[in-house]
């Protein structure tokens, strides 16, 4: 029993790393690795099935989209958008959240009250509404999608960092730094931040998965990156109207999203159990 379970966990981690490495590789080099230009249209090849179906050909391993674009290439290049959106949005919201959390937790009092009320307000406005309104106003560009997700996502970081900071503020090493007149910035970033970085990394990892799902939700509403830029969310959302005649335009990007998000979640969970003495496996 013991060894079997351990191997299972190990295997899971290995698969997770493999998937994420592939994801990152595609995100960085997909454009060069893809067999075709994913925006290349060939109307005569509209909705060609994957190679294992009759009528499919090895030229398009995973079949083609309605306008004859190669789906495999779309997935390979589309990884870029998912990677970019998730990393940038998480980094941005993490940055904002951590700074607010550190300041609110360390200074306390009025500053804390203001920050926490802001967080409450943010939490009570539905994400989707902000997305509709803001992207509607600014246009469905990559940078806007990142911005909107970041704006709506900082609260988790702020709350966690604030709680931890409040706890750390009373610890001796911080007190002694304060007594020796260390500048606030230095205390926050040199003494407190390193102690909360693990929690932040765990949340950020899980958030990457969440952001990829968000992005596909925005695509469903027509609020995310628009073609010809290929993105998994858009391929999934656009393909859904053909689901009854051709599953491949939506199924394969769907599987890509699913596998990557699942792996990211496993990784996040794994990191948490590794770093958090409280939650043990």
């Amino acid at each position, binding site marked *: 029993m013991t060894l079997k379970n351990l191997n299972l966990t190990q295997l899971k981690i290995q698969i997770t790393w493999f998937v994420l490495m592939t994801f990152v590789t595609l995100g960085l080099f997909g454009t060069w690795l893809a067999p075709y230009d994913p925006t290349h249209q060939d109307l005569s090849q509209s909705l060609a099935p994957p190679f294992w179906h009759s009528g499919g050909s090895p030229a398009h391993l995973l079949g083609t989209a309605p306008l004859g674009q190669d789906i495999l290439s779309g997935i390979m290049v589309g990884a870029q958008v998912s990677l970019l959106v998730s990393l940038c949005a998480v980094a941005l919201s993490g940055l904002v959240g951590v700074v607010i959390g550190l300041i609110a937790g360390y200074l306390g009092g009025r500053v804390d009250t203001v920050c926490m009320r802001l967080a409450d307000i943010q939490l009570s406005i539905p994400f989707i509404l902000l997305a509709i309104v803001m992207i*509607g106003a600014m246009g469905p560009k990559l940078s806007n999608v990142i911005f909107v997700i970041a704006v709506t996502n900082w609260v988790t970081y702020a709350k966690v960092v604030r709680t931890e900071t409040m706890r750390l503020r009373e610890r001796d090493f911080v007190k002694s730094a304060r007594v020796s007149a260390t500048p606030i910035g230095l205390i926050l970033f040199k003494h407190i931040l390193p102690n909360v970085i693990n929690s932040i990394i765990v949340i950020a990892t899980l958030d990457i998965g969440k952001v990829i799902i968000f992005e596909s939700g925005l695509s469903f509403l027509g609020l995310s990156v628009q073609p010809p830029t290929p993105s998994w969310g858009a391929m999934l959302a656009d393909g859904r109207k053909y689901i009854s005649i051709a599953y491949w335009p939506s199924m394969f990007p769907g599987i890509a999203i699913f596998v990557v998000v699942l792996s990211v979640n496993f990784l996040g969970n794994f990191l948490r159990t590794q770093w958090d003495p409280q939650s043990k496996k």
Partner: protein
Amino acid sequence: MKFSSPNRFAALFLICALSLPNLSFSSPTGKLTVAVPSEPATLDPHKASNRYNYMFNSNMFEGLYVRNDKAELVLALAESVAIASDGLTYTFKLRKGVKFHDGSTMTADDVKFSFERAINPNTKNPLLAYIKTIDRVDIVNTDTVALKLKERDAIFLKKLAFAGWIVPKNYIQSVGEDGFAKKPIGTGPFKFVSRSINEQIEMEANEQHWSSVPKVKSLIIKTVPEDAVRLALLQTGEADIVAEMPPPLVDRINALRGVKTLSHPSGEIYWIVFNIKDGAKDSPLLNPMVRKALNHAIDKQSIITNVLKNQAVQISGALAPSVAAVDKNLQPYAYNPALAKKMLADAGYPNGLKIDMYSSVGRYTLDKDISLVIANQLKAVGVDVNLNLWESSKWVGDLSKKYYPMSYQAFGNTVFDPEGLMIFGLHSKAFWSFYKNDTVDKMIDDSLKITEQKDRDTHFQKIDKMLYDDASHIFLWESKILIGMRDKVNWKPQPGDNVYKFWNASVDK
């Protein structure tokens, strides 16, 4: 079933002839469920304008004139009309014994009230543009009403069939404006039962209708925005008719058991609109040679075959074949990329040009896909299109604020006359027109004064030829509306915006 004759006797005779089969008919039975992607906002016929309003209105209300199932203009709530020789006074003899759904009789008072309400700016009637030529409404006697126009309008009767709904005066005054919108009453073949916003509208056969009692007892119009879900509803039998299916699904629907497809000309033309009116100072599109080149660069037939699965018909100019008498000699710009390249070079763009294109997503059938194909084909002749795809309402909202050099648009047919398109889509004064040509403007203005249909046809063909020669737009196609229907339903869609009229629909057991 024609009531266009101004002869009162003939009309009366026809009514008698019509009421006979009604007596022998069994009363309406069964339920017809229709699933459509969107729905009317308000149910007040004087306060709303989208095509789902029209669907509701045409089953629920009637005007003095309506369109019959062949889309012909026929008298409805009026028995006859007399048009003064100056074309400014229309005197209507009202039909006797027409009852509103609450049992009250329609009178001249109701007609006067309806028109005054429709043209009152406070009503905020979106269809005001159609009938704002009405100056005043006079009651001549208990069953005669005269409409006085400010200026001559050759297609006034056609407009009445679209925007001249008759509503009950006493009822509205007693329940108020909101009360009426919530529980509307008309004279049409179906009565309103209930409505749940974003869910469905339930209607019931009006067995007291003066001419055509529907064959189905209950009519349910469901709002189902997802294409895949509408198809699923048809497949499971939860819906009998599903509207506006994406063309690629046509084979799939036909392959389903117990289900067939109907496709019908929509009267709606699709084109690439060049903005050569405002803010187009240095645009290369101002050069007709460039516009012609772009027309040659698009392989319309390939798009119709491969993307629209033949659910469209190519057009040469701006006129829709199902609406207007099109000049058969006018051939569409041929697909010829080499020629397009050469023409661009001749126009002074040997290395191609860069241009921004703005298209909506979800406003028109497959608008995203088609815009992508068009951008791609233009790229092939050296026109580097920077395609911006925007969510529909954002796209419309910015229409008046932002300069769209090029965009993929459609223009519908509401009055079964090219004039709708001409006045509202091509005249430089129109909101939806981005084209400016003084000669064309002048000719459009003239068209209102031409009453004889033949003369109108040739006049519009002349305008069409001018647009064609000027390559005012990239002319693409007239679309068809694709409908999925269960075999047990007997129904024929009617042309144009009139499609969803269920007077004659019946459902087999």
